[in-house]
């Protein structure tokens, strides 16, 4: 469904992603693990069109999207929950969700999507009039995920959704990701919490300084000695 071929992405002279190939099949959960600065966020931003790769090709459902603008990529069905959540702090919860549906023309489906999000995260319904910036970290993460779902994406990119959250909330977030995937949304998940991510994922890639060093099924990677040492703290 999504395919990255030989992607090189630079920040000025700095090469952050050095020729990676990644594939995500329809309906899968695929995770991308790697330590700080490995190039995970850069990869997601390249898929979303915020960063342009210097070379290589991104294709989605067989279509080359390497040079498609970010807002059109959302329109094609790829939605991102970025690192740090990036809630619009001075828009209300409701307005944040409305912005999530910005690419959807006509609001026939808007109400049902909104109801789904409130069902997934009832706390957002209770706080719909509150400013995004006043929510707790966990609530902001829920809002970020809810916002990304409002456009009815075919594929969801999640960048470290568990970062900085209490264990209870992390569990809830992972359950929701599973639920979203069960509902038919393909997921590409970036995580530092490698154990939970690999357990959830069908396949995974390990990224080190801008290159894919290991890949395999979630089970394989959980059993891989190097992965255990470097990312699972065993």
């Amino acid at each position, binding site marked *: 469904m999504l395919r990255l071929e030989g992607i090189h992405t630079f920040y000025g002279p700095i090469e952050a992603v050095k020729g990676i190939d990644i594939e995500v099949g329809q309906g899968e959960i695929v995770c991308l693990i790697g330590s700080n600065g490995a190039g995970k966020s850069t990869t997601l931003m390249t898929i*979303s*069109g*915020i960063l342009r790769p210097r070379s290589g090709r991104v294709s989605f459902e067989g279509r080359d999207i390497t040079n498609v*603008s*970010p*807002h059109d990529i*959302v*329109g094609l069905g790829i*939605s*991102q929950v*970025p690192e740090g959540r*990036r809630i*619009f*702090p*001075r*828009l209300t919860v409701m*307005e944040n969700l*409305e*912005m*999530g549906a*910005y*690419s959807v023309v006509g609001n026939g489906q808007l109400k049902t999507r909104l109801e789904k999000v409130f069902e997934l995260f009832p706390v957002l319904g209770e706080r719909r009039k509150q400013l995004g910036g006043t929510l707790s970290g966990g609530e902001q993460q829920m809002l970020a995920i809810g*916002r*990304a779902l409002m*456009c009815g994406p075919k594929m969801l990119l999640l960048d470290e959704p568990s970062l900085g959250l209490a264990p209870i909330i992390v569990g809830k977030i992972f359950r929701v990701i599973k639920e979203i995937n069960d509902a038919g949304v393909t997921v590409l998940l970036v995580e530092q919490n490698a154990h939970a991510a690999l357990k959830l994922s069908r396949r995974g890639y390990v990224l080190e300084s801008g290159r894919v060093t290991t890949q395999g099924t979630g089970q394989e990677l959980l059993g891989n000695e190097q992965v255990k040492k470097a990312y699972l703290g065993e």
Partner: protein
Amino acid sequence: MLFQQIINGLTVGGVYALIALGYTMVYGILELINFAHGEIYMLGAYLGIILFGFFTSVGLTSHSLALSFALTIALSVLFCSAYGFTVERIAYKPLRNAPRLSPLISAIGVSIFLQNYVMLTQGATDKVFPDLLGSAGFDLLGARITYLQVLIIGVSFLLMLALHLYVTKTRMGKAMRAVAQDKVMASLVGINVDSVISVTFIIGSGLAAVAGIMVAMYYGLVNYFIGYIAGIKAFTAAVLGGIGSIPGAMFGGIFLGLIESLGASYISSEYKDAYAFAVLIVILLIRPAGIFGKSTEEKV
């Protein structure tokens, strides 16, 4: 006496507020001080004179003053919006990723260009706006209020209300606020950031055009240099209210108008232009981010 000064202050203040809104909206989104904005206001005033003169010469004004006037405003707004749009596309958009000083210099360049363009095509001497309503008016609470003042105050407040509703209630208005808060995230939800920036310039320029025509009517005279001082005053108003804040620009403009008017009558009219800056200095000492401004720590 006091009431009279308040009315006079609201009249000028409403106009400052309309211009200040253009500065603050652009700053809110691009963190750019659009020095050319005062010139858009000046163009609005000139277009007002030219268009109204044209409608008078073809006999429309004697037929229907209201229609002639409405068309003058509508077309001037349209022209100025087109100017604002074009200026952004030509002078700012190519510099979107350049160091912050570059678009600022470009803005000063556009400002100088527009001033000279108008001076060369319209002449360096004052142009006169026909006196439509004269000094007709009424007395209220011991003050003399002209119909023109009522018109200016009414139009300014209506436009501010309309803008407020636009920004808080419509899809595009909410997108403008989203873009001002986080451009990357706005793109990630599917907002075309470039179009939102264009809309911002179009709206700001339209408001400036209306301000330009109203000032031309109020003072009766227009020259190619009026954008400079009005621009500085309106910019001061925007900073006073907290640059980037829409309610701040509205408040700052009206506050500035009142200060000038009261200062001129109760202290001395010789220093009329200085009061604005004196107040600005005092406010910035107490609240560096302006009255409605957000302190920088908050802006993550």
